[in-house]
């Protein structure tokens, strides 16, 4: 708004002086403006060179096949994409990414929202700060560390998980969590929920704090209980944060790499491969850049669709009070 008002004013200024302005003066204004571009030049260059150009180049690479022995690069058209459709591991990786996204939305968007609501409803400001900070700690630590930590926790011999299950008498659940094709990816996803829920809880708490207190006070006076306030007032009023967190969670789920690489490397028997690790395996371990780039294109398309959907949603109307 402020920008629009300002440029309006300056447009009027230009209109008023424009007729009287001499040519050199207008020229000087133009040069001055071009010179102002220096403020954004660094970002423009860095973004085009290292972010946008490589992504365009990725599509070009994805239509080639390079021979690792001779170094010859040949154009193979869409052959890499055709191969993609018939690669069972691409499909299971895609499924794993989707499972990642769905489970993360349940815990890191919905669960984190409810948790933030509970924390913000506590009467003591000290305990609010305490829980928010404690739950956030795993998010500050690298996924390599938390991944390795849970690699140990899931381990049958020294692991905490099987020791706890054993103590509780749940012997049927004593599984080699990361060693089994059926449980590996879910064990990784569970670690990721543990690591990430505190971050989204903090962001939801921030969003809830921005809602004017009077709205809740009025609801309390009218006898509306805390749970109905949470879903009837807080949820609709923080929907922009919910949309943002959903976007971040979905795009994050399709870029998963670190924890899978550290915990299983995609195994056993490729059961926990995700698109990111399969891209890496194909591109760097097998040196098949073309096919790796084709897998990367799938990641790009999914994140693009999610991003556009988010834009469309936020354009429909902002929350006002």
């Amino acid at each position, binding site marked *: 708004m402020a920008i629009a008002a300002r440029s309006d004013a300056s447009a009027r200024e230009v209109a008023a002086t424009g007729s009287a302005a001499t040519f050199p003066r207008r020229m000087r204004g133009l040069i001055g403006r071009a010179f102002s571009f220096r403020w954004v030049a660094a970002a423009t260059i860095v*973004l085009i060179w290292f972010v946008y150009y*490589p992504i365009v180049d*990725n599509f070009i690479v994805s239509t080639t096949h390079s021979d690792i022995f001779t170094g010859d690069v040949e154009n193979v058209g869409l052959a890499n994409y055709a191969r993609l459709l018939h690669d069972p591991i691409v499909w299971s990786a895609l499924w794993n990414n989707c499972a990642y996204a769905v489970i993360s939305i349940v815990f890191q968007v919905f669960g984190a929202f409810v948790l933030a609501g509970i924390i913000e409803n506590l009467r003591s400001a000290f305990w609010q700060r305490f829980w928010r900070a404690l739950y956030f700690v795993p998010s500050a630590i690298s996924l*390599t560390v938390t991944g390795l930590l849970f690699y140990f926790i899931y381990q049958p011999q020294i692991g905490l998980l099987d020791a706890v299950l054993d103590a509780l008498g749940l012997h049927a659940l004593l599984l080699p969590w990361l060693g089994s094709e059926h449980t590996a990816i879910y064990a990784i996803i569970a670690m990721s929920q543990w690591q990430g829920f505190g971050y989204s809880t903090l962001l939801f708490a921030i969003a809830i704090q921005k809602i004017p207190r009077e709205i809740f006070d009025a609801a309390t006076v009218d006898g509306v209980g805390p749970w109905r306030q949470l879903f009837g007032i807080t949820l609709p009023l923080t929907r922009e944060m919910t949309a943002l967190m959903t976007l971040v969670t979905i795009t994050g789920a399709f870029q998963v790499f670190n924890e899978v690489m550290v915990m299983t490397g995609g195994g056993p028997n490729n059961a926990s491969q995700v698109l990111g690790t399969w891209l890496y395996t194909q591109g760097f371990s097998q040196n098949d850049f073309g096919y790796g780039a084709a897998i*990367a294109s799938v990641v790009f398309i999914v994140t693009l669709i999610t991003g556009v959907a988010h834009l469309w949603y936020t354009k429909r109307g902002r929350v006002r009070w």
Partner: protein
Amino acid sequence: MSHAVRERSAAAVIGQTLLWSFLVCLGIVVAYPLLWMALNGFKTNAQIFGSPFSWPTRLAWSNYAHAWNHGVQSYVVTSLLVTIASGVCTVMISAWTAFGLTRLKIPGQPVVLALVLGGLMLSPTVALIPLVRMFQDLGLYNSDWALIILYTAFRVPFTTFLIRAYMIDLPVELDEAAKLDGASESQRFWRVLLPLCRPIIVSCIILHVLFAWNEYIFAMVFTGGSQTTTLPVGLALLMARTGSNYSEVFAAMTISSLPIVIVFFATQRYFIRGLAEGLGK
């Protein structure tokens, strides 16, 4: 009437008890594994295998010393260098860009804005293969420079987004007044706007440190083959190298997490305030 009140307060007490038990249990689930990690760094390997829940019988600092000497030292140095250098570059470039986008009339402004906001959606994974070839051609593959450049390039959109949101909300009159007094663009940026933006700048620095200290995929692909790599990649290498000497790995994990946890607790007030102001509703 008093009966109803008592009944309601009884329900409230039960509700509060359930709520607090939930918060405490969740707290234990979060904190216990981290405590276990730090304590295992003090145990011998035999103790780790024999009694996973026990406290260490004595504080074996030697694991920490071994881990430090077996490479963790150089990983810490590389991580520090890359984090600081890319942090300074990212925040500087982003603050300039936010200033240009919110306070100046620059040619092609909508295009620059679209580049920045569009960059929020683009992920490192998609650009990985072309970037490797590009950095091989530039001769920067397997060097710290690759990470400094890439961390800057991929964090500028988000950082600019936060600073821009903050600058838009600052009153225009302040730097308009400076402009009328004949201040140049540089003076308006360095003397007026940058000091006003200090809260968001601090948050952006913290967010960048959290990112750069923990980043994995670029570090692994671009420096994984060299001796000087960052902590996350170095830890994975250490794990592969030390084999079953788990206590040393636990010590190394604790060494790499401690600084970032301390940074978070020391700065969380700024961090939260900055996020609140940058992210909007």
